[in-house]
């Protein structure tokens, strides 16, 4: 520890010396913060760790994922791990996608002033404004396509001057697109039939009734499947 190189950052206004070359998330833990919320996958996929920072002498705020961004000298940061943004209630099968249901469920999208602040806040580099604009004109396929990489971190919704809940709009768009425009993948249908037929019930029961020690042993011995070349899994989803 003694020869570790340190750098100073500010977490919620308080100065900490943290190791150089670690992520914001690791730096916060090093500084003594313990995550009850605001951390999940630690791999940039779950969107739980939205964070804002400003560098010394810089007027712009930057928007990142704490588990992905490295600390930098003089960074002032805080986490914004949660966005109060209730989701509209709907039953997908009951919606008529020919009407602009996105606008009906999220009428505030009509307030968009095209400031593009949402796009600049997105750590996934999604064209967020463009998918909101596509939603406004009922272009569900475009919403689905543009918002595909959204991880629902909520940072866009925290920044929007029109109080739009972008990621819910994107999610609804993808769902509508999936139901209305895309073929149901065969492997999915097959898997659902397997589940319904109880094919995995036995294994589940065994796991559920296992002791903690057994579970730990199983976890330690687990075999991680090699990643297969995506020949079956993704191809069939296409129209």
């Amino acid at each position, binding site marked *: 520890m003694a020869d570790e190189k340190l750098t100073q950052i500010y977490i919620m206004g308080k100065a900490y010396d943290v190791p150089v070359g670690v992520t914001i998330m690791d730096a916060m833990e090093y500084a003594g913060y313990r995550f009850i919320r605001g951390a999940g996958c630690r791999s940039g996929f779950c969107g739980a760790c939205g964070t804002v920072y400003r560098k010394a002498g810089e007027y*712009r705020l930057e928007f990142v994922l704490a588990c992905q961004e490295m600390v930098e000298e003089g960074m002032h940061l805080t986490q914004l791990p949660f966005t109060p943004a209730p989701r509209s209630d709907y039953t997908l099968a009951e919606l008529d996608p020919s009407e*602009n249901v996105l606008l009906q469920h999220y009428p505030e999208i*009509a307030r*968009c*002033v*095209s*400031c*593009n602040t949402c796009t*600049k806040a997105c750590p996934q580099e999604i064209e967020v*404004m*463009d998918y909101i*604009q596509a939603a*406004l*004109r*009922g*272009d569900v396929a475009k919403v689905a396509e543009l918002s595909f990489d959204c991880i629902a971190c909520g940072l866009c919704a925290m920044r929007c*001057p029109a109080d739009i809940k972008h990621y819910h709009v994107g999610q609804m768009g993808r769902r509508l697109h999936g139901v209305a425009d895309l073929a149901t993948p065969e492997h999915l249908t097959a898997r659902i039939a397997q589940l319904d037929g109880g094919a995995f019930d036995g294994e589940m029961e065994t796991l559920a009734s296992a002791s903690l020690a057994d579970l730990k042993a199983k976890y330690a011995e687990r075999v991680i499947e090699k990643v297969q070349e995506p020949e079956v899994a993704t191809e069939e989803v296409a129209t």
Partner: protein
Amino acid sequence: MTKLAYFPGCSLKDNAKRFEDAAFFVMETLGAPLEELETWNCCGTVYSLADDDLMHHIASVRNFIRTKEAGSEELVTLCAMCYNTLARVAGRVEAHADELEKINAFMDREEDYEGGIRIRHILQVLRDTIGWEALSETVVRPLDNLKIAAYYGCTLVRPQETGIDDMERPVVMADALAAVGAEPVTFPFEAECCGTYQIVDEPHLALEQSNRILRSARLAGADVVVTACPLCQHNLEQALIAPVGESEEIKSIQVVYFTELLAAALGADEATMSPVVREILSTSVTAEGGA
């Protein structure tokens, strides 16, 4: 002729799709096809009149940047409201360099807008670039004996700086329909307001306004009222569905977009037309097939 950079606006992709479909056909037939901007956003809907409300002009400015990116100096619109908003913002930032500078500074880390984009309504393109004569020559299904009332509303003709024609006695839309064989009637409410967004909060206000417009057109002898704005079209349609007061006269009148009748005259396939236009062709137009 080269392709025209085209800005649709949200309504034309949604409830006013037939307005646009017909325009695509017309311009294609005239050899000046519309090429939709690859990326565009809402025009801003209503031009903000506040002196210091620059935020609400950004939407239009972004579309000007997209137009430049598409290699065009001109942007053609179809919706009267989009035309009005885009044209007024274009004029405003052209005249106020300080405001444009502020908008560019706000957009930050993005392409600046340097000015220079000209907004044109499709009726201006038809009148000034293509010409009535050329339009006439393309007609395959003349709208003989069809009496039309061209209804302009507000946003095409006001304010004067951006109006596409005389603000009190506009003729451009009537001329376009006359060029394809229809007979325009004159009526006093051609440039009155339809009631606009009052239809949402105070529907009776918009319905009364729209009702007056339809009645006046009918009394002037019109079979059909033609519009250039999805909101005017909507309000007039609502007035047809839910007439107020003494309105027997209006029951027999139809309301369609001007592009729909132009497309019909230029030979659009009946299958692509809205039921209203098909009905107009079969009941009022006596040219083709001697129906």
